[in-house]
């Protein structure tokens, strides 16, 4: 059971960056890039800040580059938590 799930990610996205205009956060958005969902680099930075606050893990700025999709962000966070 991963410590950080796609649903957690959805809640952070909606809570701090707003919902995408064309899609529902409940849709199958895991593999769609943040850019395609309408979340720019500022939005991803904001989400990373919220994840850090919620889980107490530090996410370096260059890791944000790696978080291209919601699923990639979830995977990254779980790797950090497992380490």
């Amino acid at each position, binding site marked *: 059971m991963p410590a950080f799930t796609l649903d957690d990610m959805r809640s952070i996205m909606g809570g*701090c960056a*707003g*919902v995408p*205009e064309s899609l529902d956060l409940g849709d199958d958005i895991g593999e769609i890039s943040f850019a395609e969902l*309408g979340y720019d680099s*500022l939005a991803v*930075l*904001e989400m990373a*800040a919220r994840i850090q606050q919620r889980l107490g893990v530090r996410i370096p700025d260059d890791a944000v580059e790696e978080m291209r999709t919601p699923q990639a962000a979830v995977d990254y966070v779980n790797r950090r938590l497992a380490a």
Partner: protein
Amino acid sequence: MTDTSPRRARRASRDTRPVFTGIGVAAPNGLGTAAYWAATLDGKSGLGRITRFDAERYPVRVAGEVSEFDDTEHVPSRLAVQTDHWSHLGLTAADWALRDAGLDPATLPEYEMAVVTASSSGGTEFGQREIEKLWSKGPGYVGVYQSIAWFYAATTGQISIRYGMRGPCGVICAEQAGGLDVLAQGRRLLRGQARVVVTGGTDASLCPYGLVAQISTGLLSTRDDPERAYLPFDADACGYVPGEGGAMLVMEDAAAARERGARPYGALAGHGATFDPRPRPGREATSNLRRAIISALEDAGVEPGEVDVVFADALGVPERDRLEAQAISAVFGPHGVPVTAPKTMTGRLYAGGAPLDVATALLAVRDGVIPPTVGVRAAAPSYELDLVRSTARDGPVRNALVLATGHGGFNAALLITATDPS
């Protein structure tokens, strides 16, 4: 040589005057143009005790709030989280103005659409929230959107992005006067590459930090009764009431508007702007507002006798009221022109106030009626003003002059004129 005087040249170029084809209003006494105009003609005020936060311990407790405005209803959530309340009002009004103009930005060349808005306070409510996070939790809790939400050009930028308007964009910060200066800047752009300009302004600074900044001028009314708090030109004047909101306008090249079959509300015929001398201790304050008025009339090629109404800046501070009344009487003669201040129903909206006055002037031209100044029982006789009090006054309105001054010495005057049906 007889035909080359500047005035003749301007009169000859009447056809090239930019026209206003869309209006969007978010005002304390009405959300949407129709609601605002109906309330304004009825003399219905939007002033009341501040409800947005507990203002009981502040010296200013009355304001004009845009109530019944729900951000989530008007602004998409991805955009709402990135922007301050002031931009929410601006984005909403811009959307309404474009719809009113019947313009679909997606069908127009992106580099021929421009955005120029006025702002006098930026995103203070957003800023206050983030500063609270900074001192209570630490820098890691300050949201990233603070970097873009607070600054003066945020509303311009977000409108430009939202509609793909990539022509020349900008912001003018000259307090209330900036709301007229942006329209003059829009006219300049229409003489260049732009065919459509989204312009006007909103302001919204009714949070503790924003209010304290306004109180520092010493010009605000501290009276608790909303009906007696803002009385410009009255012997009982005691400062002004602050408000939030404003208006966005769509301004177009006249020929382009005609070509697409748009029905203009009116045209921008003239603009003048001046700056006041620095106040010096021991010397009476002076104003260069009169010179701004004369410049606007000359620019328009309109004689004082042709002006049907003056929308006053109406600061409600006795010394400033006297200077404004002197400027008006100097140009139009004692009791020489009807003067009105519908902002007595909204409070002073700063960069949003002057565009709202222009919207009101355009509606006055359309309907042939001058909206009232509420609350004022009688203009002080020494001002020699024909103040339109209590109830609206009927009569054709072909030329309307809008005045605005800005804290720090800005003066602006703008002349709206009726467009002849073609």
